[in-house]
């Protein structure tokens, strides 16, 4: 009782207090520095919501309109801040609705803690109302999960949850708490977790590996770097930049690595992978040393592994030992956090410039510009292209915005053409490719970076997967700018049908509602653009509007994303049309 009366000015003292499990959950969150969580209430988590009510001046809860939205918002928040995102849901359907976001966070290494309510311990296994084995269901898609059945377990388990979610290669953790454990009282004391004996968050750095890697790098004539999200997650942007500037190595990115290096940096040679740039894809198969930094050789990056960089010696800077040799056989693995390994290798590498080799990328760029980019950014045909929308956004934001993209053609266009000057600015669902990610993720990103412009780029298909989150925007006034690139198709699937299924457009055409009316229903300023002449002023209006804004751009219906490496083809077979 005493604990309740002093909630208003609560600071985390190490003094033991007798409180309920539900209150302990809140106190653990506060102790971990959490001040914002996303969620949706229900029977099995009501004791915790009751405590949230009491602690609302210290811990803000954002009610999303679907639990999937809560996870994606938590992810957006985590991706833009580097902090752990927190999502909460009730048992049964509440918990199962989290699964897509958890799987997304797992494959994209996003630090997230999900807390679910569960039926009382005495009911476990009885098929009680809204009982679901969420620990069983989430096991393959969590870094760790655990079911708490006694209140006294709460502090230690939550401390572990945060430590595991954020340390090493980050990932999602799910903690399921039975209702009795929320109600029961116990003597609360909190201690942060700093190590777990069976878990080595970051492997030790091996000096020998560094020396070997440096030797290969110093001898290389045509070295190439492919960097991924490891640079961002390891907060290694400065070290990375110092490393490439000293060695003069052309550096390409995966879509999750995007924004770690300034788009206009002279050594930034663009994107690798299925819809990546022509040069870095082609030249992957011509370089003599391939240096992978914090990336995991996803099949969308490598194309056919049998013909991927076979001529090159491969160096892999990686925090997760299980990634080494998983897809591509490496010659030298440099294990550790990229921030440390890159700093340690810097004095070991020689200054270099690789001017002629860099020039080869630029010559490929010229070809790509002529065959692909020109028509995308400076179209002469009537229909609006997705690329020109991105170009307009670039010119008005100066590359300072956070771009949150959904999944499909518009995502590839956003990643190909958006320009970035700041890290942690490109937020997209990479590994899982979750349609519906962008709108809720943008809400989380805006709350994580309230002073920055946050622009969601979404297709007309994906938009309708989580469109209900407009309600969250209405209620929280999150000033998210939403751009829907409407091609009236599930465009990316239609593109594949056109190229590989003789244009049999099975279930990809969309009859869409009036998106403007819908946005207005949520009191969001909205505009539709159908002509090129209206585009610039509409983007201007969107950006100068203070609150949220919805911009629908009706784009050419049957445009395709190129370059493209067809599934199963080699990176060197990248097609320009």
């Amino acid at each position, binding site marked *: 009782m005493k604990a309740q009366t002093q909630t208003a000015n609560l600071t985390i003292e190490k003094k033991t207090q007798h409180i309920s499990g539900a209150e302990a959950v809140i106190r653990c969150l506060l102790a971990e520095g959490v001040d914002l969580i996303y969620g949706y209430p229900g029977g099995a988590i009501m004791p915790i919501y009751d405590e949230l009510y009491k602690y609302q001046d210290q811990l803000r809860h954002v009610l999303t309109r679907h639990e999937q939205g809560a996870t994606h918002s938590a992810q957006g928040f985590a991706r833009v801040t580097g902090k752990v995102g927190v999502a909460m849901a009730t048992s049964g359907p509440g918990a199962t609705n989290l699964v897509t976001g958890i799987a997304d966070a797992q494959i994209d290494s996003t630090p997230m803690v999900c807390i679910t309510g569960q039926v009382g311990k005495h009911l476990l296994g009885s098929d009680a109302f809204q009982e679901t084995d969420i620990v*069983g269901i989430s096991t393959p898609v969590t*870094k*760790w999960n*655990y*079911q708490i059945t006694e209140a006294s377990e709460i502090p230690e388990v939550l401390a572990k949850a945060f430590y595991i979610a954020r340390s090493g290669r980050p990932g999602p953790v799910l903690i399921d708490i039975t209702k009795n454990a929320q109600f029961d009282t116990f003597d609360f004391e909190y201690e942060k977790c700093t190590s777990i*004996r*069976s878990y080595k968050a970051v492997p030790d750095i091996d000096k020998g590996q560094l020396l070997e890697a440096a030797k290969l790098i110093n001898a290389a004539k045509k070295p190439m770097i492919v960097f991924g999200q490891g640079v961002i997650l390891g907060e290694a942007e400065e070290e990375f930049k110092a490393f490439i500037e000293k060695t003069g190595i052309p550096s390409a990115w995966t879509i999750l690595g995007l924004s770690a290096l300034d788009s206009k940096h002279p050594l930034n040679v663009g994107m690798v992978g299925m819809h990546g740039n022509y040069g870095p894809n082609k030249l992957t198969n011509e370089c003599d040393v391939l240096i992978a930094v914090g990336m995991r050789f996803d099949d969308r990056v490598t194309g056919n592994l049998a013909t991927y960089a076979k001529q090159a010696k491969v160096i892999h800077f990686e925090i*997760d030992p299980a990634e080494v040799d998983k897809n591509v056989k490496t010659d030298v693995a440099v294990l550790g956090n990229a921030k440390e390994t890159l700093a340690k290798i810097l004095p070991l590498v020689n200054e270099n410039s690789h001017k002629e080799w860099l020039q080869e990328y630029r010559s490929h760029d010229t070809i790509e510009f002529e065959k692909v980019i020109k028509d995308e950014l400076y179209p002469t045909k009537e229909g609006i292209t997705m690329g020109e929308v991105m170009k307009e956004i670039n010119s008005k934001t100066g590359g300072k915005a956070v771009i949150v993209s959904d999944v499909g053609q518009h995502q590839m266009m956003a990643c190909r053409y958006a320009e970035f000057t700041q890290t942690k600015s490109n937020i997209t669902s990479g590994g899982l490719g979750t349609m519906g990610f962008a709108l809720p993720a943008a809400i989380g990103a805006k709350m994580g970076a309230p002073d920055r412009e946050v622009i969601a780029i979404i297709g007309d298909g994906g938009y309708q997967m989580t469109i209900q989150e407009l309600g969250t925007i209405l209620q929280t006034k999150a000033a998210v700018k939403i751009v829907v690139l409407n091609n009236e198709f599930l465009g990316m699937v239609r593109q594949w049908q056109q190229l590989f299924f003789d244009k049999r457009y099975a279930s990809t055409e969309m009859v869409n509602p009036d998106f403007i009316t819908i946005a207005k229903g949520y009191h969001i300023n909205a505009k539709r653009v159908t002509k090129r002449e209206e585009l610039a002023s509409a983007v201007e209006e969107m950006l100068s509007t203070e609150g949220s804004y919805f911009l629908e751009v009706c784009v050419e219906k049957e445009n395709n994303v190129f370059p493209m490496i067809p599934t199963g083809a080699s990176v060197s077979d990248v097609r320009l049309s």
Partner: protein
Amino acid sequence: MANQKSYTISVYTENNVGLLNRVSSIFLKRHINIESLTTSQSEIENVNRFVIVATMDDSQARKIVGQLEKQIEVIKAYAHTDEETIYQESALFKVASDSLFDERQIQNIIKDSHANIVTVSREFFVIEKTGRRHETEKLYQDLKPYRLLQFVRSGRISVTKEPMNISEMLTAF
């Protein structure tokens, strides 16, 4: 497929609910069939040991070990070929007692197999045989004609020829 062989995967873990699910899901995700699985206490207090037998190639075995070790509560995992381990399985055979008296042959089978008689009652008797798969398999084939009421074989248990050094790892922590 070429290069497929039998691997014994040993996994040292903390003793927690749900870990079996996490360990087995790593095999499931890669569509690798678990041929046998045993879990028990290990030589270290509060540390469990899984012994899993599965057929795969060398690179799969390495990746499985990597994925297993990545799990928070897994202390260490190893993959060993049959030659690198000393392993046994145990089998129990329940046979109707009348066969013991009616069929003289069965007494010779038991004697030759070096199996132990665990219990004898009026209705049935139970014999136990520990050994390699082919040994328990042979006894199974031999006993089959004589009213074998029940048969069960344990998963493989194995120890490695090389030292494991888990205790040192945990003390170092």
